């Protein structure tokens, strides 16, 4: 599945070919193929249990596939560790945010900037004072719209919405070649969802994005292409208009999840 290349089609940044993953008797990922192209925002939707989380795990390296392979920027990364893939530019955000709760907002982002800058076997200079880490961190937080007032707040004390936004900033810190976003809108209120949608819209085109989401408004507002996942298989893939009109999709998913 997935749009085949034709004249003028941008190169795929990410290609998943025939991915299979079984957990005991359960087939979580069923011969799944997927592509994300330069400059596109590709959304992945599907009912709960469709295997979206498993797919993200396969793409990032947390789970090893039983079959199939993954190509990132043309290279086969199927055997690479999570950290190795991240260093090549595959950044992700977690559905349940994974933050350093004891540190400040700024420190969290600065650490991501630091990780991107290379190895951290430096033992003497205080990292908290390094402009090379602090300045980019500030810029990133401004970019995602997290106000300066919150930069020195302990992350454990941030609101849920702020934590989701911080999660995005951390993913961006790596100047990624691909953003894998796992339900960035989950749990956000109406205003926060709108703000997040606008932030993502600003990113659209500049960084290829694979967006896993339940929030249909955001998906149809942002996506260039949508793939629908049900029981580990891609049952449809195409433009938002095509997907909206596809009867199989309507039956399997949109009817369940009211529009």
């Amino acid at each position, binding site marked *: 599945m997935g749009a085949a290349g034709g004249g003028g089609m941008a190169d795929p940044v990410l290609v998943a070919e025939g991915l299979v993953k079984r957990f005991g008797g359960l087939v979580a990922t069923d011969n799944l193929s997927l592509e994300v192209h330069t400059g596109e925002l590709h959304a992945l939707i599907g009912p709960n249990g469709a295997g979206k989380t498993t797919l993200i795990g396969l793409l990032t390296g947390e789970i090893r596939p039983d079959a199939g392979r993954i190509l990132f920027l043309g290279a086969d990364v199927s055997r690479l560790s999570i950290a190795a893939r*991240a260093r090549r530019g595959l950044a992700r955000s977690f559905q349940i945010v994974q933050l*350093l709760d004891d*540190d*400040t907002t700024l420190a969290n982002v600065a*650490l991501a900037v630091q990780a991107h800058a290379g190895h*951290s076997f430096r033992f003497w200079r205080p*990292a908290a004072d390094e402009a090379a880490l602090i300045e980019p961190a500030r810029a990133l937080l401004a970019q995602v719209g997290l106000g300066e007032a919150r930069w020195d707040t302990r992350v454990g004390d941030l609101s849920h919405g702020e934590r989701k936004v911080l999660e995005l900033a*951390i993913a961006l810190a790596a100047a990624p070649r691909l953003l894998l976003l796992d339900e960035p809108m989950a749990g956000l209120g109406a205003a926060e969802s709108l703000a997040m949608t606008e932030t993502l819209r600003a990113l659209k085109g500049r960084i290829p994005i694979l967006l896993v989401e339940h929030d249909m408004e955001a998906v149809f507002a942002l996506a260039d292409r949508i793939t629908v996942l049900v029981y580990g298989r891609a049952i449809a893939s195409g433009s938002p208009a095509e997907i909206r009109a596809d009867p199989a999709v309507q039956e399997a998913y949109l009817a369940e999840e009211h529009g």
Partner: protein
Amino acid sequence: MRDRVILGLLLLGAILLPFGAQAAGFPATTGIATQIACLAIAAASLNLLIGHAGLVSFGHAAYFGLGAYVVGILWEHFRLGEPLLGFIPGTNQLLITLPLAMIVAGLAAAAIGALSLRTSGVQFIMITLAFAQMVFFLFVGLKQYGGDDGLVVRRRNLVPGLDLRDAMQMYWLCLGLLVAWLFVLARIVGSRFGRVLEGIRQNERRMAAIGVSTYAYKLVAFILSGVGCGLAGALMANYLRFVSPEMMSWQRSGELMVMVILGGVGTLFGPVLGAAGLVGLEYALGGITEHWQFFLGPILLGVVLYARGGLMGLLGYGRGGGRGHG
């Protein structure tokens, strides 16, 4: 600013302690303080691993003991006039034994850490304990170095400019090295490396996702803490003029961990307070009953359950509390 003043005063007090002890008629206090300083170096090293990297190693007494045995074994060969393994001459020069102790401890930590860090969680705790036992049994079996009975180091090492036979100078050496080591640890904790360790402690999954191969950093932290324990052990061997396998026992590993938590995990001075606290408890309670550990048990339980920040926490300097960091 106020903190700096307090710190300065405490340091001054520590330096003047031997004079005060003599004047007050308790000269033995200097010796106790020396022990506290040595143990504090070990506890502070362990704190880097436990408090900052979040790795609970239950076998760090092995490196403490190894450092001590480097001093002991080199002394023994010096005394006998025979080289170790046929070509390494014995010595009683501190400027050789101390660095060598740190190197040997570091190498052992590298080997054991490389293997142990392939696991995590409870397995890691059990494995570090088991490896320390292995080292313990090795030295129990080395009859030529005293085995179970231990080895007497008749004279303290020689250092140009100091006479370590003088209790005061021995104390000042240990105090000085403690202060220096704490300074180094503080820099490490605040550096980029230290930030990665903190990240690993709080959320290792997140660290992998931002591209950090955590194994290498954990191993370096493990080695650094082993080196520090080796230094502490070598100093202790000089102070006690005695080394024995007991210094690498699991009980000793446990005591080091107790010091870390008693003082306040993850703080700079916690280990010092913890060492002072534990040694203090031993002398205070030990004077009342030989079964003082019967009371130490519940005290420890109480600290773990109700006073997690340890003594530093009680004083308002708990991790993340008074002394926040960016």
